């Protein structure tokens, strides 16, 4: 029983951490631009194909991983420059539709240039192994996901708290117009937000593909849906909310998988997205209420 619980905890914390990173990547852009980036999942895809192509080189895997994350960051920056900057001042609905088009574009480019079939990138052999602590068996993939996600969250927190760009980002998320009036360059802040978004997607991609073990053109769909749920439930307007939402969803997913009967589990997506609609209706600001919205009331 205790061993079950320990395994449950590690899996849930690992999954929750990755979900939190995904949601953060979505929310950091939303906070500033009010853009819900549908094409966010395609950054995971870009990193996945990066792993596939760079992985053919003889370099050690860690370099492959870093370069793949870099691919996602570059893709995010290009996306911002080419597609989103020109529609920046349009309504949130227009931006959302633009990101839908970007997502379709990238998916079909992958379909055309690479292949519709799943491709298997090189992954470190240690990902399939597991460790034993007494009677507790823990997958290396879970454990490394847990560690990396916590390190990434701490690093991001430090970055946002201690650097000038971090301060500008937080200020812009609160009140973009005011931040610009204070002399912060809009393009710089937005590019930084997209870079972080790409970074998160890239990190997540390593573990996501470590789990699915192959890359397809549509691999980005599930991560982006998860990021949607986590950020809506946690609160679209706060970074803390994204993290909370990610962990809640991680625990919920593993919990449902472990304890719910199979035929009920088939309706899991329906239940999760039903919850999303409910949260939007009843508590649109999510679990974590942003500071400024209290004042706006």
């Amino acid at each position: 029983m205790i061993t079950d619980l320990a395994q449950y905890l590690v899996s849930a914390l690992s999954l929750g951490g990755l979900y939190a990173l995904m949601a953060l990547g979505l929310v950091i852009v939303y906070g500033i631009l009010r853009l819900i980036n549908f094409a966010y999942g395609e950054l995971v895809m870009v990193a996945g194909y990066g792993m596939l192509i760079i992985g053919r080189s003889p370099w050690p895997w860690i370099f492959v991983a870093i370069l793949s994350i870099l691919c996602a960051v570059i893709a995010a920056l290009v996306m911002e420059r080419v597609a989103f900057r020109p529609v920046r001042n349009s309504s949130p609905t227009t931006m959302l539709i633009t990101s839908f088009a970007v997502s379709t574009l990238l998916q079909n480019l992958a379909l055309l240039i690479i292949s519709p079939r799943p491709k298997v990138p090189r992954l470190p052999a240690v990902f399939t192994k597991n460790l034993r602590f007494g009677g507790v068996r823990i997958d290396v993939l879970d454990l490394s996901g847990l560690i990396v996600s916590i390190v990434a969250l701490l690093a991001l927190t430090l970055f946002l708290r201690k650097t000038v760009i971090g301060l500008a980002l937080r200020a812009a998320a609160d009140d973009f117009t005011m931040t610009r009036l204070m002399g912060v360059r809009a393009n710089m802040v937005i590019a930084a937000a997209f870079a972080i978004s790409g970074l998160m997607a890239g990190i997540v991609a390593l573990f996501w593909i470590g789990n699915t073990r192959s890359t397809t053109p549509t691999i980005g769909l599930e991560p982006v849906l998860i990021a949607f749920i986590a950020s809506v439930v946690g609160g679209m307007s706060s970074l803390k909310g994204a993290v909370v939402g990610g962990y809640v969803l991680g625990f919920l997913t593993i919990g449902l998988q472990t304890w719910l009967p199979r035929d009920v589990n088939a309706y899991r997506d329906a239940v999760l997205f039903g919850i999303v609609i409910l949260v939007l209706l009843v508590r649109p600001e999510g679990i974590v209420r942003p500071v400024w919205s209290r004042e706006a009331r």
Partner: protein
Amino acid sequence: MTDLRSLASRISTPLILSGIVSLIAIIAWLRGDVVFERVVTVMFINVLLTVALQVFMGNSGLGSFGQYAFVLIGAYSSIWFSLTPEQKNLALPDMPEEWWLYSQHYPFQVAVVLGGVTALIVGAVIGIAFVRLRGASFTIATFAFLIVVHSIALQWREVTRGSRTVIGIPKETSLLIAAVWAILAILIGYAFKESTIGLKLRASREDEDAASSIGVNVRLMRWISWCLSVFMCGVGGALWAHFIQQFSPQQFYLSETFLIVAMLVIGGSASVSGAVVGAVSVAMVSEGMRQFENSWNLARQKGTSIGDILPFQLVGFTEIVIALAMILVLVLRPSGIMGGRELAWPLRRRGSPPAASSESVGMTGATDTAS
């Protein structure tokens, strides 16, 4: 004089648009080419769906990614009502015989309307909740609803046969029927846009707070247009089901949603003409691209020199072109090909501001209602 002129241009719009549809139908009928006829029939159903989307999105200004949920509901519910019990044994073998639905059997046209009504009932209920939302939250909620309906359809074997393909549906939707419904949709869509409700809704699109401050019940107007839109989507699904004859829930999902949103955005969401022009032009371009793709891939297989130019098969090329066109339109001409105007006769005099007029329509509407 000006009144007469505006009256003429008002009536001329639905006439021109239905004229375009009829003309295409006649050309397809005269050619007698089976493949071409299929393409045109699907295009008419897409015209219907795009106008349905326009009725809501164009007038309210809210984006919906959930319309295909209602196309799905319309498609499945129409076959519940149109198939005989014997046909249901084949198409929906998991439906229990003691169900009331099992014994229902109506003529095709009745089943189409019932498909629309089923979508309307579901949409009307969920719509009460949705109209409270604003902006991007609304779009995300409709998107979530699409996923909910999709995953329920994949699992509820009694009514949808789960993820497996429903087969053996008789082909009832002809070129003529599709054309008639497309024209009906254009008339309804245009009449709605020009009605008082449409006017109030367009006013709320321009400025929600200003519209409600002068007594427009924004939520109610949105709800009415939402209901009309989902009914039309349900009808479209029913027509499609009886045309394609076999389908599964996978055929009512993201790429289909993308297609009708692209059609509307490219054409211009603020006018019915935009919806029609967008649907027709995107359908034509994508059909042309598809033929190009096929002949290219065929040439590659034969090993001619074309194969050396590109090392891969052409898949997804059509979608790339549509997505690129959509991004270009959103960046360069956000109001679409039609720029919010309707096709009308006599044409607007030269020198009148083109795109701005669409913006001002809503605003003048708001002041009119107030006075």
